[in-house]
């Protein structure tokens, strides 16, 4: 067991550690709780997209993979994808992908606003009447990440500011975002204490705080050895 001196010392350590770390400890607990409470599929926005109805319609496929391959023999991979605008061939050539229409084998035209909305309507299970579309050509929004330009941003204009991002060159869904995802992203940032890139878990700030948090937890655990002790009811 602990001597009175050790007990006092532990209590003091715990008291001062929690004073300095308190805010971050609470942030860890709150952000952690948010992340485990929110269903990760919901956060990913699975409710915003239902592609189960999206299938390859063989009748629309007027040009066969063999024909495509004979035109582009240097391709290393060929895919056939269903889109709301009909089947699309995706070819891996040296470096970047090439998208061809499954109807005529011609490279896809950049997606018009109308076509982008048509694709969104096919993917989104709800009503799109309040939605608006914006073509992004300059920079990819931070919430998308990577390089996907040009990109159609479909704003569903719902209560959670949900958005679908559709590649203007292929018509493929790039990603979907909503306010709970954005909050999740902030929580993750707070949890790993990387306020710039939001992805570096190896930052020294986190090392320092985690180490002190470990000491806090250990001092607290040791205090449990004496925390429930009771003296005699009425000392004689």
């Amino acid at each position, binding site marked *: 067991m602990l001597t*009175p001196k*050790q*007990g*006092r010392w*532990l*209590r003091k350590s715990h*008291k*001062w550690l*929690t*004073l300095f770390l*308190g805010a971050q400890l*609470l942030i860890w*607990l709150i952000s952690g*709780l948010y*992340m*485990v*409470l929110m*269903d*990760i599929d919901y956060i990913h926005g699975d409710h915003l997209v239902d592609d*189960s109805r*999206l*299938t*390859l319609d*063989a009748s629309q496929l007027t040009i*066969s*993979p*063999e024909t495509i*391959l*004979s035109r582009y*023999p*240097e*391709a*290393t*991979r*060929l*895919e*056939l*994808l*269903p889109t709301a605008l009909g089947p699309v061939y995706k070819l*891996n050539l040296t470096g970047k992908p090439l998208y061809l229409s499954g109807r005529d084998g011609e490279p896809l035209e950049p997606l018009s606003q109308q076509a982008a909305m048509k694709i969104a309507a096919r993917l989104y299970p709800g009503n799109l009447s309040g939605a608006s579309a914006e073509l992004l050509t300059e920079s990819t929004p931070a919430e998308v990440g990577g390089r996907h330009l040009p990109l159609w941003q479909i704003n569903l204009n719902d209560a959670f500011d949900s958005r679908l991002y559709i590649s203007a060159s292929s018509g493929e869904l790039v990603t979907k975002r909503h306010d709970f995802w954005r909050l999740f992203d902030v929580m993750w940032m707070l949890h790993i204490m990387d306020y710039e890139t939001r992805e570096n878990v*190896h*930052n020294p700030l*986190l*090392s320092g705080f*985690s180490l002190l*948090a*470990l000491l806090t*937890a*250990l001092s*607290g*655990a040791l*205090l449990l050895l*004496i*925390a*429930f*002790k*009771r*003296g005699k009811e009425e*000392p*004689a």
Partner: protein
Amino acid sequence: MRLSMINARSLHRILALIVGAQLIIWTLTGLAFNLIDDPLLDANALRAKPEKAQLISPQVTLAEITAQLTGSGTKQIDLKRVELNTLLGRPIYRIKTSSGNHAFWADTGEAVNLNREQLTRLAKQSYRGEAIFSEPILDEAAAQRYGGNPAFYRIDTHDERHTQIFIDGQSGQVKAHENLGSELKQLLFMLHFIDYYPDNGVSFNHLATRLIAFAALLLGLSGTWVLVRKLAAGDYISWQLISRASKKESKLTLLSPDGELLENIILAPGNLLDNLNHDRNRIASQCGGGGHCGMCRVRFVDQAPKATPEERARLKEELLAQGIRLSCQHNGHQGKLALTSRAQLRYWQKAQAEAEPALNPAQAPLVNESSPLE
């Protein structure tokens, strides 16, 4: 309101008992994620990128393959995605349908079902460096983990990282590499996420995880409450004491239960119990100043401070009325304090005897004499 304040500390204690171990696990595993370099935990440390080969023209058309697919089943099959690729130097179709994934050799039209030699060749292709490869081993647990077909194989290499290669024999895909590092990572995730059934992937949306995270937050909030109360009470910094200390030394006078003078003690910042015990153990305590054991009680002879929630929980109303308080719950106090029992007096005497052996080698000082400090 008062009741909830008492509960803040008890709640903190009880919750710590429940989630304390997990808090240590969280901080330890968090620290491990922070400190261990990514390459050490990387499952694909020795994985080779697939070579990009020019596609080989298929001998069997997609139309023939889909005819074969729909012919074999009774119900209509929807095509979701088709891929033409190269596997082990042969063209291969991979087809995703509403009923599952299928793979066919595009030169013969046969369904893919890799034999041992092919599996081993594929494993070697996906691996950088030299190693000895085991025979392919059917691995059902891995099939479940990676959502693969029943013909799911594991191939062990005997390298120093114990790399294992997982191949779906019916799609011809190298599904994953695993090694000691990735197993450690898996273990860290399992502990951090309280996910003790990681066979279906790493998940943190379990009921257990949620409940423990909620209890932990309550622990944090109750702790915050105690902390804020201590701050307000001047337990961290007491301006009163600091300003008093700058003017002149302040002392407290300790009396026996009967009101006889025992000694004068010079006050330092900090709580009363720490002051009383700072150079010797004058007052017994079991909980180390937690306001729970009740052993550190003293009687304020003049004006007693307002009782804290801990004291109202621990001390009877009549004791409070007599000015009895827990010394660990109050700041240094200028004035007179009395011990409350014979037992406490004996404890004090013992401390004096231990501290002043030269003055009183044989016996404890008499109670009614002035203390040597006087």
